[in-house]
């Protein structure tokens, strides 16, 4: 490529459109992968937990599935975020880093609140699981609301609203139905968004 080749206006415009799309893709974080990883972790993790409560699968297996898928879903956005922001400085990177840190901060604070309440109230195992699962889902829902606002991404905001509804629904459902709400409403919602992002990326 000599870089001085004469382009016709049509070639030039095609180059602009093609390159713009390619760069958006390469500089982005692949949201369809992140939502897929989380959707799968919720669906199989909490779905497995529900089955374990009914004695269909051993609790240890359900625990390992939830742990492993959860760990992948946790690490993936960090890896993708760091890779996408490589060699970039400025307000967008700062906002992205603040957003990433907000996940950690809000989950850490929620863990302290839940642990302290648990220590003081000494609730039953059922209530404990309701508290942890629903509050985690509510925090995740709020983070999706924030992400929707930050990147002006309405579908992501809709997912956040859906997660908040699911969080409330899971408590109202009670144990063990709450695990089904988490698996299908929580995980399902994320998988739907993942499918939407995949279609939008191709389209």
């Amino acid at each position, binding site marked *: 490529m000599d870089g001085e080749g004469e382009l016709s206006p049509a070639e*030039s415009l095609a180059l602009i459109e093609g390159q713009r799309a390619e760069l958006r893709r390469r500089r982005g974080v692949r949201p369809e992968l992140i939502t897929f990883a989380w959707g799968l972790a919720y669906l199989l993790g909490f779905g497995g937990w529900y089955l374990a409560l009914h004695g269909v699968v051993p609790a240890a297996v359900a625990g390992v599935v939830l742990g492993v898928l959860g760990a992948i879903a946790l690490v993936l956005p960090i890896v993708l975020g760091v890779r996408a922001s490589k060699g970039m*400085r*400025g307000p967008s990177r700062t906002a992205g880093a603040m957003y990433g840190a907000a996940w950690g901060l809000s989950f850490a604070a929620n863990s302290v609140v839940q642990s302290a309440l648990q220590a003081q109230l000494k609730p039953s195992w059922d209530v404990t699981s309701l508290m942890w699962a629903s509050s985690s889902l509510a925090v995740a829902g709020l983070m999706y609301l924030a992400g929707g606002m930050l990147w002006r991404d309405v579908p992501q905001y809709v997912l956040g609203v859906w997660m908040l509804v699911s969080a409330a629904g899971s408590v109202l459902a009670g144990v063990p139905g709450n695990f089904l709400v988490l698996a299908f409403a929580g995980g399902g919602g994320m998988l739907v968004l993942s499918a939407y992002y995949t279609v939008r990326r191709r389209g």
Partner: protein
Amino acid sequence: MSEPWPELDPVIHAQARLRVMVALSTLASGDRLTFPRLQQLLDMTAGNLSTHLRKLEDAAYVEISKTHERRTPVTYVALTPAGRRAFEAYTEGLRALLGPRGEPP
């Protein structure tokens, strides 16, 4: 070689520089890219990219800032406001030339 297009900005209307302009135009206002990252995104050699960046800098379309981070020299590249305007004018110029039958926007 096709005939020249006098209406189009000659600084931008060359494949390599156009690609640089497109890449930088996808950045939000205030964001900057390091030279190696831009080079990687465009898949250009350092020498080639430097040459074209210099021409764009001479036209005041890009701003190149050199700083040090942890004692390592880092070069950042971004469009200037004039560069962003020139790129928009160039794109509009293309659409005008192509007319209603041209490529869809």
